[in-house]
Protein backbone atom coordinates (compact mmCIF):
# COMPACT_ATOMS: atom_id res chain seq x y z
CA UNK A 1 0.00 0.00 0.00
CA UNK A 2 2.81 2.40 0.85
CA UNK A 3 4.36 2.32 -2.62
CA UNK A 4 1.07 3.46 -4.07
CA UNK A 5 1.11 6.49 -1.88
CA UNK A 6 4.63 7.30 -2.98
CA UNK A 7 3.50 7.80 -6.55
CA UNK A 8 0.60 9.92 -5.37
CA UNK A 9 1.92 12.97 -7.14
CA UNK A 10 2.85 11.09 -10.31
CA UNK A 11 -0.48 11.46 -12.07
CA UNK A 12 -3.73 9.56 -12.07
CA UNK A 13 -2.78 7.28 -14.96
CA UNK A 14 0.15 5.69 -13.19
CA UNK A 15 -1.92 5.06 -10.10
CA UNK A 16 -4.81 3.49 -12.00
CA UNK A 17 -2.50 1.27 -14.01
CA UNK A 18 -0.75 0.06 -10.92
CA UNK A 19 -3.97 -0.65 -9.11
CA UNK A 20 -5.40 -2.58 -12.03
CA UNK A 21 -2.15 -4.56 -12.13
CA UNK A 22 -2.58 -5.52 -8.48
CA UNK A 23 -6.22 -6.37 -9.07
CA UNK A 24 -5.29 -8.59 -12.00
CA UNK A 25 -2.82 -10.52 -9.87
CA UNK A 26 -5.39 -10.93 -7.15
CA UNK A 27 -7.95 -12.26 -9.63
CA UNK A 28 -5.44 -14.73 -11.05
CA UNK A 29 -4.57 -15.94 -7.57
CA UNK A 30 -8.20 -16.32 -6.60
CA UNK A 31 -8.96 -18.23 -9.78
CA UNK A 32 -6.02 -20.54 -9.13
CA UNK A 33 -7.21 -21.25 -5.63
CA UNK A 34 -10.74 -21.77 -6.87
CA UNK A 35 -9.83 -24.33 -9.52
CA UNK A 36 -7.46 -26.05 -7.10
CA UNK A 37 -10.31 -26.39 -4.66
CA UNK A 38 -12.47 -27.87 -7.40
CA UNK A 39 -9.79 -30.33 -8.44
CA UNK A 40 -9.58 -31.48 -4.84
CA UNK A 41 -12.54 -33.72 -5.51
CA UNK A 42 -16.17 -33.58 -4.55
CA UNK A 43 -16.41 -32.28 -1.04
CA UNK A 44 -19.05 -34.11 0.90
CA UNK A 45 -21.79 -32.19 2.62
CA UNK A 46 -20.09 -31.29 5.85
CA UNK A 47 -23.18 -31.19 7.93
CA UNK A 48 -24.52 -30.83 10.71
CA UNK A 49 -25.76 -30.73 14.27
CA UNK A 50 -26.03 -34.01 16.16
CA UNK A 51 -29.79 -33.84 16.13
CA UNK A 52 -29.78 -33.23 12.39
CA UNK A 53 -27.67 -36.33 11.90
CA UNK A 54 -29.91 -38.50 14.05
CA UNK A 55 -32.96 -37.12 12.27
CA UNK A 56 -31.41 -37.90 8.90
CA UNK A 57 -30.64 -41.54 9.76
CA UNK A 58 -34.01 -42.03 11.43
CA UNK A 59 -36.03 -40.70 8.53
CA UNK A 60 -33.96 -42.65 5.99
CA UNK A 61 -34.71 -45.87 7.88
CA UNK A 62 -38.38 -45.30 8.62
CA UNK A 63 -39.26 -43.92 5.18
CA UNK A 64 -38.19 -47.12 3.45
CA UNK A 65 -40.19 -49.30 5.84
CA UNK A 66 -43.24 -47.10 5.39
CA UNK A 67 -42.94 -47.25 1.61
CA UNK A 68 -42.70 -51.04 1.75
CA UNK A 69 -45.65 -51.46 4.11
CA UNK A 70 -47.94 -49.04 2.28
CA UNK A 71 -47.08 -50.42 -1.15
CA UNK A 72 -47.69 -53.96 0.15
CA UNK A 73 -51.00 -52.99 1.72
CA UNK A 74 -52.25 -51.34 -1.47
CA UNK A 75 -51.11 -54.23 -3.67
CA UNK A 76 -52.82 -56.67 -1.31
CA UNK A 77 -56.06 -54.76 -1.46
CA UNK A 78 -55.84 -54.63 -5.24
CA UNK A 79 -54.97 -58.31 -5.77
CA UNK A 80 -56.94 -59.70 -2.81
CA UNK A 81 -53.91 -61.54 -1.47
CA UNK A 82 -54.01 -60.24 2.11
CA UNK A 83 -51.55 -60.42 3.87
CA UNK A 84 -48.78 -61.95 1.79
CA UNK A 85 -47.45 -59.07 -0.32
CA UNK A 86 -47.38 -56.80 2.70
CA UNK A 87 -45.32 -59.36 4.60
CA UNK A 88 -42.75 -59.60 1.83
CA UNK A 89 -42.60 -55.90 1.00
CA UNK A 90 -42.24 -54.93 4.65
CA UNK A 91 -39.12 -57.10 4.89
CA UNK A 92 -37.85 -55.66 1.60
CA UNK A 93 -38.52 -52.19 2.97
CA UNK A 94 -36.56 -53.07 6.09
CA UNK A 95 -33.61 -54.16 3.96
CA UNK A 96 -33.87 -50.97 1.92
CA UNK A 97 -33.93 -48.97 5.14
CA UNK A 98 -30.72 -50.59 6.35
CA UNK A 99 -29.17 -49.91 2.94
CA UNK A 100 -30.20 -46.25 3.17
CA UNK A 101 -28.70 -45.96 6.64
CA UNK A 102 -25.45 -47.57 5.53
CA UNK A 103 -25.17 -45.19 2.58
CA UNK A 104 -25.92 -42.12 4.70
CA UNK A 105 -23.49 -43.24 7.41
CA UNK A 106 -20.73 -43.85 4.87
CA UNK A 107 -21.23 -40.34 3.53
CA UNK A 108 -21.01 -38.90 7.03
CA UNK A 109 -17.89 -40.93 7.80
CA UNK A 110 -16.29 -39.68 4.61
CA UNK A 111 -17.24 -36.11 5.45
CA UNK A 112 -15.44 -36.25 8.81
CA UNK A 113 -12.31 -38.41 8.63
CA UNK A 114 -10.35 -39.03 11.83
CA UNK A 115 -8.23 -35.98 12.65
CA UNK A 116 -4.60 -36.18 11.55
CA UNK A 117 -2.25 -37.13 14.36
CA UNK A 118 -4.80 -39.32 16.08
CA UNK A 119 -3.51 -42.70 17.16
CA UNK A 120 -3.93 -44.92 14.15
CA UNK A 121 -3.28 -48.17 15.94
CA UNK A 122 -0.65 -50.88 15.74
CA UNK A 123 -0.90 -51.25 11.97
CA UNK A 124 0.59 -47.87 11.11
CA UNK A 125 3.98 -46.56 12.12
CA UNK A 126 3.77 -44.32 15.12
CA UNK A 127 6.70 -42.07 15.90
CA UNK A 128 5.62 -41.57 19.49
CA UNK A 129 7.54 -44.40 21.14
Amino acid at each position, binding site marked *: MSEMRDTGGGGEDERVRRQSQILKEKIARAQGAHSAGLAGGASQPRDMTGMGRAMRLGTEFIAAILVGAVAGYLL*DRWLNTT*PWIMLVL*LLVGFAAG*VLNVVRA*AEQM*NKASPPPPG*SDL*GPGTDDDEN
Partner: protein
Amino acid sequence: MDPEAAKYIGAGIAAIGMAGAAIGVGNIFGSFLSGALRNPSASQSQFGNLIFGFAVTEALGIFSFLIALLLLFAV
Protein backbone atom coordinates in the same frame (compact mmCIF):
# COMPACT_ATOMS: atom_id res chain seq x y z
CA MET B 1 -65.42 -58.73 24.66
CA ASP B 2 -65.97 -57.39 21.22
CA PRO B 3 -63.55 -59.25 18.89
CA GLU B 4 -62.82 -55.94 17.14
CA ALA B 5 -61.61 -54.48 20.44
CA ALA B 6 -59.48 -57.55 21.14
CA LYS B 7 -57.81 -57.03 17.78
CA TYR B 8 -56.75 -53.48 18.65
CA ILE B 9 -55.59 -54.48 22.13
CA GLY B 10 -53.54 -57.28 20.59
CA ALA B 11 -51.96 -54.84 18.13
CA GLY B 12 -51.04 -52.56 20.99
CA ILE B 13 -49.47 -55.38 22.97
CA ALA B 14 -47.53 -56.53 19.91
CA ALA B 15 -46.11 -53.03 19.46
CA ILE B 16 -44.58 -53.20 22.96
CA GLY B 17 -42.14 -55.73 21.53
CA MET B 18 -40.43 -52.91 19.67
CA ALA B 19 -39.18 -51.58 23.00
CA GLY B 20 -36.91 -54.61 23.20
CA ALA B 21 -35.46 -53.80 19.81
CA ALA B 22 -34.95 -50.20 20.92
CA ILE B 23 -32.96 -51.35 23.96
CA GLY B 24 -30.95 -53.74 21.80
CA VAL B 25 -30.12 -51.12 19.18
CA GLY B 26 -29.13 -48.63 21.84
CA ASN B 27 -26.92 -51.27 23.43
CA ILE B 28 -25.21 -52.08 20.12
CA PHE B 29 -24.45 -48.48 19.18
CA GLY B 30 -23.40 -47.63 22.72
CA SER B 31 -20.98 -50.54 22.85
CA PHE B 32 -19.66 -49.69 19.41
CA LEU B 33 -19.08 -46.10 20.40
CA SER B 34 -17.25 -46.98 23.62
CA GLY B 35 -15.12 -49.48 21.73
CA ALA B 36 -14.48 -47.07 18.88
CA LEU B 37 -13.33 -44.34 21.24
CA ARG B 38 -10.79 -46.69 22.81
CA ASN B 39 -9.43 -47.80 19.48
CA PRO B 40 -10.51 -45.48 16.67
CA SER B 41 -8.36 -47.20 14.07
CA ALA B 42 -10.19 -50.50 14.40
CA SER B 43 -13.62 -48.89 14.24
CA GLN B 44 -13.62 -48.53 10.46
CA SER B 45 -13.12 -52.25 9.94
CA GLN B 46 -15.93 -53.10 12.36
CA PHE B 47 -18.47 -50.91 10.60
CA GLY B 48 -19.89 -53.90 8.72
CA ASN B 49 -20.32 -55.89 11.91
CA LEU B 50 -22.04 -52.91 13.49
CA ILE B 51 -24.57 -52.71 10.69
CA PHE B 52 -25.05 -56.47 10.75
CA GLY B 53 -25.81 -56.44 14.47
CA PHE B 54 -28.09 -53.46 14.03
CA ALA B 55 -29.99 -55.19 11.20
CA VAL B 56 -30.48 -58.44 13.11
CA THR B 57 -31.63 -56.67 16.26
CA GLU B 58 -33.91 -54.33 14.43
CA ALA B 59 -35.36 -57.24 12.44
CA LEU B 60 -36.76 -58.69 15.67
CA GLY B 61 -38.41 -55.37 16.39
CA ILE B 62 -39.75 -55.29 12.86
CA PHE B 63 -41.36 -58.69 13.46
CA SER B 64 -43.47 -57.33 16.30
CA PHE B 65 -44.29 -54.29 14.17
CA LEU B 66 -45.35 -56.74 11.46
CA ILE B 67 -47.63 -58.60 13.87
CA ALA B 68 -49.21 -55.31 14.90
CA LEU B 69 -49.77 -54.35 11.26
CA LEU B 70 -51.22 -57.76 10.48
CA LEU B 71 -53.63 -57.52 13.38
CA LEU B 72 -54.68 -54.06 12.31
CA PHE B 73 -55.04 -54.53 8.57
CA ALA B 74 -55.03 -58.18 7.62
CA VAL B 75 -56.94 -60.18 10.23
